[in-house]
């Protein structure tokens, strides 16, 4: 009897363990596609999501709203084309949507899709890990008749495999290489985002030393770092960007130590190329300023340290593609754009940011959007003194996309 009780207990508790461990996958439950939000008017880029919107700073409402590019974009051109009735779209995420960061910025894009195509059925699929899970999910969705499948994480290889089997379905992937007859890519010109961020950092730094916490010294981390430094030195030619690498995409404890080491060195403005709360928290606890990158979660977490930061507007790419797919005119390619295309925005400024610095950001964004300022224009000199982009030239599209193996002058600290 006693033994039987034990066995029963063992079995039930194991079951409980297993069920609890799997429990959180239920978050996959389809998000209701229903939305009654009216299709936004032409100036929709600002409607990306309430939280990440380019909203006006308290002091200077008029100027800040102009940070939304005035130039006509594909987004505004096609918005009124279709309300998406009959269209089915699925968006795949690697993690859950409760957290901000990368996933949150992507979800703001999905929300723009929902708002601007109210007739469409938009399904959010969470916790899809790259690999077999992703392939199974995409196959199921394609079988189920979804017209457009958008991946927001590193699904390139998986999507290439599945898309080959479903030529009638459109596939859209974030920032990788594969482009086929029914699979395209979308990515942001992060160099434009970081150039503006760097300029703001230099304008607000009193010591001229800016701290940058990043994960690895690899090309697509060095690109934003380089352009951040270029932006900083466009404002203050003596500005130094001090960089530390944690050698981990996610180790908040190391990020704390790295950010503290930067402040101990005399840095008074911090930024990062990561998404945990560690770096803004150090800025808050030690009285430094903080500049966001891509999302403005830190604005709420560390309001006293928050200065500003570029915002990702993935929604522009989603809506454009969805409209083209609906119209039957979609030709898979590489969507790559910045302020001019509405793919980038700017977050609300912190309360301590003076009007001149806000104007500086606005005018830089206006110049970039109008094509008057190319952040990759020469001369660009690396920190070993080599001329990487000669005067009067600028990097070509391909070189921009794969940039950078070099480190620009003004960056201090060990790389790699």
């Amino acid at each position: 009897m006693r033994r039987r009780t034990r066995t029963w207990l063992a079995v039930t508790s194991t079951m409980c363990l297993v069920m609890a461990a799997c429990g959180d996958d239920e978050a996959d439950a389809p998000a209701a596609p229903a939305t009654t939000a009216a299709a936004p008017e032409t100036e929709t880029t600002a409607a990306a999501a309430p939280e990440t919107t380019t909203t006006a700073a308290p002091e200077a409402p008029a100027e800040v709203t102009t940070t939304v590019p005035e130039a006509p974009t594909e987004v505004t051109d096609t918005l009124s084309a279709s309300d998406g009735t009959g269209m089915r779209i699925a968006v795949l995420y690697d993690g859950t949507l409760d957290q901000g960061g990368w996933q949150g910025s992507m979800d703001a894009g999905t929300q723009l899709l929902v708002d601007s195509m109210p007739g469409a059925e938009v399904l959010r699929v969470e916790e899809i890990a790259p690999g077999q899970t992703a392939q199974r999910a995409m196959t199921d969705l394609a079988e189920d008749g979804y017209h457009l499948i958008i991946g927001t994480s590193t699904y390139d290889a998986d999507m290439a495999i599945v898309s080959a089997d479903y030529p009638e379905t459109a596939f859209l992937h974030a920032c990788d290489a594969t482009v086929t007859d029914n699979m395209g890519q979308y990515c942001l010109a992060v160099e434009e985002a970081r150039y503006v961020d760097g300029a703001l950092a230099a304008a607000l730094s009193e010591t001229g030393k800016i701290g940058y916490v990043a994960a690895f010294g690899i090309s697509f981390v060095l690109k934003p770092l380089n352009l951040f430094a270029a932006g900083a030195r466009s404002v203050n030619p003596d500005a130094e960007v001090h960089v530390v690498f944690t050698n981990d995409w996610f180790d908040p404890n190391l990020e704390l130590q790295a950010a503290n080491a930067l402040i101990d060195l005399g840095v008074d403005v911090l930024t990062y190329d990561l998404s945990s709360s560690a770096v803004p928290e150090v800025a808050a606890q030690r009285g430094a300023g903080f500049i966001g990158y891509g999302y403005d979660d830190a604005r709420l977490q560390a309001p006293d340290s928050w200065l500003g930061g570029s915002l990702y507007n993935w929604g522009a790419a989603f809506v454009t593609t969805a409209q083209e797919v609906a119209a039957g005119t979609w030709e898979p390619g590489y969507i790559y754009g910045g302020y001019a295309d509405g793919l980038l925005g700017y977050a609300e400024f912190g309360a301590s940011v003076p009007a001149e610095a806000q104007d500086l950001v606005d005018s830089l964004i206006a110049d970039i959007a109008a094509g008057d300022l190319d952040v990759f224009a020469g001369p660009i000199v690396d920190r070993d003194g080599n001329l990487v982009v000669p005067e009067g030239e600028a990097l070509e599209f391909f070189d921009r996309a794969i940039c950078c193996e070099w480190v620009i002058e003004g960056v201090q600290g060990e790389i790699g």
Partner: protein
Amino acid sequence: MNDWVLIQSLVVAVSTGTPVVLAGSGAILTQRSGVLDLGVEGTMLIGAVSGFWVTTSTGSPVAGLVVAVLAAAVFSMIQAVLAVSLRANQVVVGVALVILGSGLSSFIGSQGDPPVARRFSGSIFTPVFPESVHDWPAVGPLLLSHDPVVYLSWAFVAVVQWYIFRTRTGMHLRAVGHDPASADAAGLPVSGMRYLHVALGGAAAGAGGGYLTLRLFSDWFDDMTAGMGWIAVILVILASWRSLRLLVAAYAFGAISSLGFTLQLLGWNIPTELLAILPFLVVYLVMVFVSAAERRSQMPASLAEPYFRESR
């Protein structure tokens, strides 16, 4: 490099090392009773999310820490039931608890209104002593600039050390972990002792997790321990199941790791990957020499072995 940089590295090592010190000292209690609790990482995550929930709801970090401790202690009872009463393989149970803790904390984090994950904490633990004393040479930053949980962790380490080696119950604890059959014959409640110390270990891990959300990051996010629980388990072994040594090891680990970033910034041409493994290398080497100098192993002889009275 100057003295100030060294002192600052130590100060950062103290704050980032506190979760490891708390969880590790708790794990020493658990392991001294003969139960190998590998689930520390998962237990810390439970403490982190439950503490943050309560603090963001009530505005009191103390209430958050208390709930973190209680929730983690309850969570660690899974380990106790499976490993002590049902005599399951402790390694398997421990690893399963890490996965369970990660999934469950992530689920809890998505609940509430607004969801815990979207909350921000305005109320966290703050330094005990006024700003003015933080600048006193050396002792100011090193000893007087901390929040109450850091001082609590120091007290806990001292109490654990004293309890294990200087009290009668501590001796009983070591007997249970070393030779449960003899302890049983001597009339000690083997299962009871093990249950109690698994709960104490869980509670301490919960405090460590709570410290993450209630001070260190003042925010909660998925899998925020990022391996801290495992580092605690490793340091317990390297520290020969002694809490004072664990404290030194944890701080040394954090200080070297923190100094690595300063070295990166100074540009001494040391590859950053090498700097990243430096704390592991140094702490390993030192602890290996320290344990080699001891005459016999300090490991509880029955660690990870379920006790069957019938097989006595």
